[in-house]
């Protein structure tokens, strides 16, 4: 009933979706690791990135690389602003106030985009070279699929080198382990947090471009589920582990795609429900996820 090509096709789609989840989970887990904040606003950066690219590439007609760079830049600057204006004042207070504020920021950004761009979705046409169709022994894909996977892997490798080899990256891991101990060795924690927000947000904005290019449509509310699912990916991978977040992203992308691809057609609309059922099952049977350590209550 399911041919090898069909399976390969589904796997490819799962890996592409998983790459995007992994990128989002990466940015989110670094911030979570330090501030214990589930940053709902992270999803809004996906939307911001998609619309920035769209505005510059389609509306202004600038070249692809400039539009992508602009999305990256806008994402990074937004990340910095959110940290400075929204979160910095609340640090050291109850963790839940950070969570509530991030919800507020998400709603603010989403509706701001809705206000600027109107509520209707836009068709998102990436540049021609990305839409070219390929067919390798029956498995169909476009250049954009390969682009997404390769760029994601590059970003992840770059990030791994950053946290493993650079002084700032080591400081970031140290701060995630203990903010107080980090201060005591002379790390400026505000600085480290700002860097985490900037990097994560810039990557989220690029992911927004990928999302639009892959699915051909962008809308003011596209980022919410993506952001929440990225947190689900973090839980699956194991909270507190950077490789775990990435693995969780891929696992989630594959599970979601394969569930839709292999369950009877009527189940396609249960897609999001399947993801959250998986979350609850993981919390029930293996709350430390694939790679995580036990987190104190």
């Amino acid at each position: 009933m399911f041919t090898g090509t069909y399976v390969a096709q589904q796997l490819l789609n799962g890996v592409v979706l998983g790459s995007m989840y992994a990128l989002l989970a990466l940015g989110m887990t670094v911030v979570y690791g330090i501030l214990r904040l589930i940053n709902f606003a992270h999803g809004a950066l996906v939307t911001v990135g998609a619309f920035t690219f769209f505005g510059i590439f389609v509306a202004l007609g600038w070249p692809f690389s400039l539009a992508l760079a602009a999305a990256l830049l806008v994402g990074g600057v937004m990340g910095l602003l959110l940290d400075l204006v929204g979160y910095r004042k609340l640090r050291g207070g109850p963790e839940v106030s950070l969570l509530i504020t991030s919800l507020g920021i998400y709603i603010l950004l989403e509706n701001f985009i809705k206000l600027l761009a109107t509520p209707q979705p836009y068709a998102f046409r990436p540049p021609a070279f990305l839409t070219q169709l390929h067919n390798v022994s029956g498995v169909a894909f476009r250049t954009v699929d390969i682009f997404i996977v390769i760029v994601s892997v590059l970003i992840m490798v770059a990030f791994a080198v950053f946290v493993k080899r650079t002084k700032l990256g080591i400081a970031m891991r140290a701060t995630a382990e203990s903010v107080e101990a980090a201060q005591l060795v002379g790390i400026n924690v505000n600085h480290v947090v700002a860097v985490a927000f900037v990097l994560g947000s810039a990557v989220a904005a690029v992911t927004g471009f990928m999302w639009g290019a892959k699915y051909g449509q962008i809308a003011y509310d596209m980022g919410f589920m993506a952001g929440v699912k990225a947190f689900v990916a973090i839980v699956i991978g194991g909270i507190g582990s950077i490789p775990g977040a990435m693995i969780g992203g891929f696992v989630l992308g594959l599970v979601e795609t394969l569930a839709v691809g292999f369950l009877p057609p009527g189940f396609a609309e249960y897609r999001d429900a399947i993801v959250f059922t998986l979350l609850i099952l993981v919390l029930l049977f293996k709350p430390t996820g694939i790679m995580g350590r036990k987190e104190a209550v």
Partner: protein
Amino acid sequence: MPLLEVERIHVYYGVIPALMDLSLTVDEGRVVALVGANGAGKSTTLKAIAGVLRPRSGRILFRDRDITRLGADRRVRMGIALVPEGRQIFSTLSVRENLLLGAYHRRDQEVKKDLEWIYSLFPILRERMHQVAGTMSGGEQQMLAFGRALMARPKLLLLDEPSLGLAPLVVREIYQVIERIRDASITIFLVEQNVNMAMHVANYMYVMEAGRLKMEGVPQEVMRDEDIKRAYLGG
């Protein structure tokens, strides 16, 4: 000449007072000890000096500069390093990464040289260089915490109960290192419950009780006090 002056500080945890009207001085080149029962406020004092807690009132001067409002990271840069109670090493990082973070703020070329100095003070750390710090024994972790603090090239080293939870042999080793650090002309402010050990290295001694200073003087003098003897030497 005073290196550190704490002037009448009050520190609170929420609404609960932890330090009341505390004043003390640490002179340059000395080893000054602070002793007191569990919960007296010794760790709180060190944290206030290191900058992770802010006093509600009072001042802290370091080399005649008012540092009361500076963050902990700025104070490290000025030359104050704390070896915290319970060590607080970064357990998921390697030994070498821990040590390098000690020199986080330094831009000079001598970090490598200091790393060698630390390895000579604590040869075990060289062996364990690439090991994840959390997998080491308590004594090794304490040495790593010392090494990490020394990598900052501090002028004032704050030590919070360095002998806590360690075997007697290891405690001896730790105190030999404290003497070597003193000999390298680094000023030491030492918190201890192990008064016997503290007495031997300290030039001067403060005694705390319930958030307040109770007594001060040279160790032999302090120890002549009947109350203190009863409380700390069980005699």
